[in-house]
């Protein structure tokens, strides 16, 4: 039980860093990048928790769907950011 426990601890640390990045900036792209840190942390947590639940296929499929939706989210968010930049000529959130 050594590695999964460390994996969970690392994922919690990564999520904390990601949330720090989210709360500590007003830049939209930095918000997006920080949310990606949280996504990586959550995927690592899912695979670490597999050792506690024993269901490998569910964690695999959950992570695959998560990665696919993350790809969609990044592209949609970036389109919105580009529109925001064209209108406001800035990347800062009010």
């Amino acid at each position: 039980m050594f590695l999964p426990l460390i994996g969970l601890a690392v994922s919690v640390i990564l999520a904390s860093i990601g949330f720090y990045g989210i709360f500590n900036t007003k830049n939209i792209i930095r918000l997006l990048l920080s949310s990606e840190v949280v996504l990586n942390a959550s995927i690592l947590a899912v695979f670490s928790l597999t050792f506690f639940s024993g269901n490998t296929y569910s964690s695999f499929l959950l992570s695959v769907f998560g990665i696919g939706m993350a790809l969609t989210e990044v592209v949609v968010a970036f389109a919105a950011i580009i529109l925001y930049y064209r209108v406001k000529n800035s990347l800062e959130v009010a």
Partner: protein
Amino acid sequence: MSPISEIQIVLFLLFSAFSISSALIIVNTKSLLYAAFSLVFLGMSTAAAIALLDPEAFAFYSVFHVLLYVGATVTFLVISLVIFKNLELTGEGSRWAIPLTAIFGSLAVIAVLYVGLTEYRGTFEPVQLSLGQVSYILVQQYWFPSLILVVALAATLIEAVTLARRD
């Protein structure tokens, strides 16, 4: 589950430290382009850490993570960032961000370690993934999420083409 070797533990700790330092660079560096490049290293080190948890069971997902997440998502981010000028950061966020994150992060780590070391009793072993079984489960049980994912990825493709036209 294959027996955990010492080199596996050392590599896992190394990649964990690497992913934490990459995450710190992402949230602290002034240049957003460097932050996006650090996201590449974060994705790769996370994939390596996942594979090292149990190489027999998770190696396939690790390759998937590198190919789809690092190869598509992060590369899209990096290339898209090039179109912006003056990417240096100016604004600052909440001044409570550091103490709040430090307190809640430390509490969460302590809680995870406490629960894991004291309450956990059984040991589950992840099974080795079979592609046939994965496709069967996808078609039989998860067909609706798969459909949503396909539609979303198709919309993403159209959106990327629209962005590339620049009009």
